């Protein structure tokens, strides 16, 4: 029975992905493009070391973003503000990185800490508003996203920018000590070619550690227990001695702190500065990845990788004259399909569990009937 349920839970995301690909294929067919050909191109294109490095490059921030969202989900809170939190955190981190000069490892640590703190503060506003004024965090984080965009626009234009070219505002370039080395040896040591123009980001290590830390915190500590039960049933959690306000606030702080890390893979990796065209949308995509991976550290890693590969593979479509936005459409459908699938399969699993328990009881003592 255990195995059956695991199979069912895996069936949900897989069927959602297949469904979404089918929708994508249908859309392509409607506009007169051969979907088999398009998807085939994508697969062939993805299978080299440059594409792998590029996919991982895209997957790492997505993963971090998903973890940030998942922490909120664990206690039924929706941090929709990861987007604003990571952007504002990355900008401050970039600014601190260029203006504070420290010895090697300390320098990068300072950059990372800045990002964590700024992200936590920005999310903490939503947490504080919820705890003290009862403001729903969905609304407040949406609003804080836009406020963050305004703050970034203002500070970048008026305070932080050094290279004020008319096209792109940017903080200063980080010095060498503010960057993480790449991890290309992970590929080359197996005899594959060195990726061109892109590298496996050093931040991958931090992302992996983050995943492990997330698992231990949520499922192995008392804090994680308190967190999860607050999400499952706030009333029971409260009666059991968990202070819901404290948990809400801490959760927002942790979620925001992790969100602050989202942009760092890019900041201390290939870009080396916070620019006006710093990658956006990762906060929202992270929600999709968290849902796809069911808040599980490994599930989310697979989900992030899938999205990373899709993003990378989309590039080939452009070369072929196929609108690459088909990938965004597929990703959008995945979000909806996966939630529907989990809902349906979850209900089946729950029903099976209840029935199994009832059957087991029946066998236990055949005398007494089960009451409704």
């Amino acid at each position, binding site marked *: 029975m255990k195995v059956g349920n695991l199979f069912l839970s895996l069936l949900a995301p897989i069927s959602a992905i297949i469904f979404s690909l089918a929708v994508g294929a249908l859309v392509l067919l409607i506009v007169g493009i051969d979907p088999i050909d398009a998807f085939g191109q994508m697969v062939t294109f993805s299978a080299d070391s440059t594409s792998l490095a590029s996919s991982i490059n895209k997957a790492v921030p997505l993963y971090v973003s998903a973890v940030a969202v998942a922490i909120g989900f664990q206690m039924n809170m929706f941090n929709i503000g990861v987007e604003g939190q990571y952007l504002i955190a990355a900008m401050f981190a970039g600014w601190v990185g260029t203006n504070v000069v420290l010895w090697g490892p300390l320098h990068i640590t300072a950059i990372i800490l800045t990002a964590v703190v700024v992200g936590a503060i920005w999310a903490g506003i939503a947490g504080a508003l919820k705890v003290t004024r009862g403001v729903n965090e969905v609304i407040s984080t*949406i609003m804080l996203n836009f406020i963050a965009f305004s703050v970034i626009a203002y500070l970048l234009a008026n305070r932080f920018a050094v290279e004020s070219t008319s096209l792109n505002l940017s903080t200063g370039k980080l010095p060498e000590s503010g960057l993480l080395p790449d991890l290309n040896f992970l590929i080359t040591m197996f005899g594959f070619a060195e990726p061109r123009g892109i590298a496996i980001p050093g931040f991958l290590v931090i992302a992996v550690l983050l995943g492990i830390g997330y698992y231990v915190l949520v499922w192995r500590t008392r804090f994680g227990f308190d967190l999860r039960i607050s999400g499952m049933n706030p009333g029971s959690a409260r009666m059991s001695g968990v202070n819901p306000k404290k948990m809400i606030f801490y959760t927002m702080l942790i979620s925001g702190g992790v969100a602050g890390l989202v942009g760092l893979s890019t900041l201390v990796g290939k870009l080396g500065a916070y620019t006006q065209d710093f990658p956006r949308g990762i906060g929202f995509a992270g929600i999709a990845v968290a*849902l796809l991976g069911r808040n599980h550290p490994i599930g989310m890693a697979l989900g992030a990788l899938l999205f990373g590969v899709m993003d990378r593979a989309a590039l080939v479509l452009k070369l072929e004259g196929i*609108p690459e936005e088909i990938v965004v459409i597929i990703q959008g459908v995945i979000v909806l399909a996966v939630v529907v699938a989990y809902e349906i399969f979850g209900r089946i699993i729950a029903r099976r569990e209840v029935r199994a328990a009832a059957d087991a009881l029946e066998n236990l003592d055949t005398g007494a009937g089960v009451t409704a």
Partner: protein
Amino acid sequence: MTADLHEPMVEAKNGSFKWSRWGRFLAIFVVAMIALSAIQEVAGTTQLTSSGTWGAALRLTVPILLAGLGGLYSERAGVVNIGLEGMMIAGTWFGAWAGWQYGPWWGVVLGVVGGAGFGLIHAIATVTFGVDQIVSGVAINLLAAGAMRFLSVVTYTIGTGGGATQSPRIQDFIQTFDVPLLSPFLQSIEDKSWFFFSDIAGILGGFTTTVSWLTVIGLLAVPVSSWLLWRTAWGLRLRSVGENPWAAESLGVPVLRMKYWGVLISGGLAGLGGAYLVLVQAGIYREGQTGGRGFIGLGALIFGNWIPAGVLAGAGLFGYADALRLRQATAVHALLLLIAVGLVAFALWKVYKKSYGSAGSMAVFAILFFLWWLTTDEVPTEVVTATPYIATLLVLSLASQRLRMPAADGIPYRKGESH
């Protein structure tokens, strides 16, 4: 007519309008206008009351209003709709495409249909499948943005003058009109630069000069919505589904169908708002044109306490601030003084009500705004851009006990499973 919607019965029972209430309303209006005129004199601008500003404010208000009303129908039926932005995006694209192909009024129709199409997706996901409403909203925003870009690439790239991020220019606008006699008369008064009278003329002039028919339709949506939701059986049923769907179900109200209505109308109105942006304001579709107006509409909905007239007030406020920013950046600066004076008035009111604590904090804020006005010459445009969002947060955190959102808003409902 809309202010008393909370208790329509009371008004109907009394039968006649209370003149004292209207008298008081008029008095407040006159005092406020005099204060506004005086502030303009002090700040050295005429833009706070110019017909140009108010005309622009009106045009900027309508899309926010339509998004907000869209949110109203959905949330009154118990479905949170943060996909308004995406539905609005669909409205801009379809509005532009049909406007370009078949003329502006077809743009309006297709804009509504496009928005409602994404409304349908939201309804299927949340109402039929019980997907978390926030998740579905986020997905719709992602999906709509991607899908519209996809459509642009497919339709606009080959020799149309458009591209992946914008449509070709639309030749015809929606027709506009000046109110005969009134418009030129008000214009002449405004030109006289009389204290107070020219200011009133400017404001009214903004409402009566080069008004688009689509603006009229947008504004009419407010009383029509009030009437529909609070006077008709359909409206009562729609609202009942947002307050207590299980009660509604037990009385034979088709809960799922009502929710579908709410979400579809929501998408349609947001789509209309999108079409308005294209067909009245810009004359072209551009990627990112909505600029978060769907979310501002959500803010207006909260600001307006889930009541049509309130949504109008919220949308008007945000539209006005935006208009000032576009018309004259320095005029926004004068707004600081206006806010300070407004806060002082509010503080005095609180003192009169013997609520000294809030009076004190109001006074402190008034002083802060006054100092801000005194020590700066300009307000960064980013602050103005962020105003709707900050205002929404402030309303939620300071006046939340006065807000009354539908009791079952956001709560998933499944047939036959009472809570």
